[in-house]
């Protein structure tokens, strides 16, 4: 895999105004907000090679920012000013006149296999540059990633939150009839681009997770004819079975936050319990011992706790226990069944699937079970996964009698949208922000 080399370079400005007005800042709150209008003209090509990326880069940045629902693009057709030089000054009145509040100016140069992208962000309202500008250097194959990096920087600068555009999602690509569905492990950019399949579809695969460093995946495979856990190196595509327990079906694997251990479910003798596997030593420890089902575990980001679902009280509910086992506290008490708890990367929230009265929901609650909020409702929504910044959740949605698709929603419940994929997909697992 080509590794994107990024050089951070402060680009000094010769025409900045003194900071008098409040800096441009979008406070993401739970209430309804008016999307912030921004302009991103085609990037300025600094050489002939850069020309073919100039427009495309700006379009990816525009799509990323608009896709959050927090920003609204001022159409390039409405622009009065033309940006023809990256280093020339910005005519703020021309951008105020088209009601842009933020302006992104970029440039691109391509020589041979090398691509260099620069950008600056301007606060049109107060008439000053925000931050110092950034430069990214890499290969032409990674041009979309550079647009994602620009988007992440702009998003972070304006919202004060971490970005998530330059990240990937491992998921299950589905094809064939419902009764004999073919499922392949696949990976894509978070916006649905650059799909690559990782398994050949001969063995059924379900429910992948990505390692904290993004270089590995674990998932459940039926390659032996029975559920087993596979660990795949995403660079080489090589996979091996891990955590086998004689006489047990093993599934539902999750990485610990340090990537050194897995927690998973093993079904034997009519019960399903959680086990922990040290990937370095191969040592295995039982974490639960109940006559019921315990599955779908998820670590707290500090690695100290596990949340999981269990039907030990009757219907499925969400529990939290110490990561090495011990007393489990039930945290879900609403009506219906609660499944697939997933701890947010910030540690404050747990996302879950809830089924009640014939509908399925994706929701979030605090890690003590309080402040439950349902974000979605449909015939079948399940399996939330968090964006690296903890602001967006992706999940599987299946309409009644329809095929599964990937959707994303803000944790505010706003901006529900389908991830644009041309085929059926399920079980998304969002990886970390790429380096």
């Amino acid at each position: 895999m080509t590794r994107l080399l990024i050089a951070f370079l402060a680009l000094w400005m010769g025409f900045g105004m003194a900071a008098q007005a409040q800096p441009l800042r979008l406070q993401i709150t739970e209430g309804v907000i008016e999307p912030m209008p921004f302009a991103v003209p085609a990037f300025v090509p600094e050489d002939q090679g850069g020309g073919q990326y100039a427009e495309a880069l700006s379009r990816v940045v525009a799509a990323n920012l608009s896709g959050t629902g927090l920003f609204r693009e001022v159409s390039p057709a409405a622009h009065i000013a033309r940006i023809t030089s990256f280093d020339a000054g910005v005519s703020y009145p021309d951008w105020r006149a088209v009601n842009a509040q933020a302006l992104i100016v970029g440039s691109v140069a391509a020589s041979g296999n090398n691509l260099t992208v620069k950008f600056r962000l301007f606060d049109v309202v107060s008439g000053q540059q925000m931050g110092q500008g950034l430069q990214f250097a890499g290969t032409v194959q990674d041009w979309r990633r550079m647009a994602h990096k620009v988007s992440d920087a702009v998003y972070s600068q304006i919202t004060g939150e971490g970005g998530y555009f330059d990240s990937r999602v491992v998921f299950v690509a589905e094809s064939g009839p419902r009764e004999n569905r073919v499922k392949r492990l696949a990976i894509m950019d978070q916006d649905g681009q650059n799909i690559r399949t990782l398994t050949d579809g001969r063995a059924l695969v379900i429910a992948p997770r990505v390692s904290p460093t993004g270089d590995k995946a674990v998932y459940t495979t039926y390659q032996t004819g029975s559920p087993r856990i596979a660990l795949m190196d995403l660079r080489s595509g090589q996979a091996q079975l891990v955590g086998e327990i004689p006489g047990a079906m093993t599934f539902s694997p999750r990485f610990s936050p340090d990537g050194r251990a897995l927690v998973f479910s093993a079904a034997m003798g009519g019960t399903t319990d959680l086990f922990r596997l040290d990937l370095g030593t191969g040592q295995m420890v039982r974490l639960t011992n109940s006559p019921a089902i315990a599955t779908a575990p998820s670590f707290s980001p500090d690695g100290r706790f596990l949340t999981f679902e269990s039907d030990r009280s009757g219907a499925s509910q969400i529990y939290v226990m110490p990561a090495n086992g011990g007393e489990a506290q039930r945290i879900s008490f609403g009506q219906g069944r609660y499944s697939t708890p997933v701890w947010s990367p910030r540690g404050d929230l747990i996302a879950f699937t809830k089924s009640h009265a014939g509908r399925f929901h994706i929701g979030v609650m605090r890690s003590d079970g309080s402040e439950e909020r349902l974000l979605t409702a449909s015939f079948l929504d399940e399996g939330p996964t968090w964006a690296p910044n903890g602001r967006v959740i992706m999940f599987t949605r299946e309409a009644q009698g329809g095929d599964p698709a990937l959707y994303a929603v803000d944790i505010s419940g706003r901006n529900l949208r389908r991830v644009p994929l041309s085929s059926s997909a399920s079980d998304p697992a969002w990886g970390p922000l790429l380096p």
Partner: protein
Amino acid sequence: MNLTTKSLLLLAGLALAACNNPRPGMFGGGGANGFGGEGGITTGTLGDPNDPRSVAHFQQRIGDRVFFDDNSSDLTPEGRSTLSGQAAWLRANPQFAVVVEGHADERGTREYNVALGARRADTVQRFLISEGVAANRLRTVSYGKERPVEACAEPRCWNRNRRAVTVVSGGAAG
């Protein structure tokens, strides 16, 4: 099992009986090919359903599957009756090995359904052992909601998909 289901099974049985060896090499149609793993194939004779020693008889007359209530792995009275018949057949035909496949409907989350299917398969396995089938002939596998037999997204199909299928294998000379 309600009357409609019974009639459907009967119809399915008749349809199967009318064919001449409809799915060679694969027992337990509507199962998920439990032994198959990655394309593995076992070969055996289905035989005539009127022959009580035949696999066809096991599948069609005794019934190779039992159904479960929503989110339940408890056997119904009909299920127990079917399994008693299965156990008697398995005792009389010791050359067959068995994979019990547990399945769930689509109205649950994926991994919970794998666990639920495992519990259903285990319930059937325990019952067969309690009726005298040797434990070393039995194996279980759960497919969760991954291999429905009925595609419709309605209760009548979900009822048919919440099942455990007893897939027999071996006895190729039989």
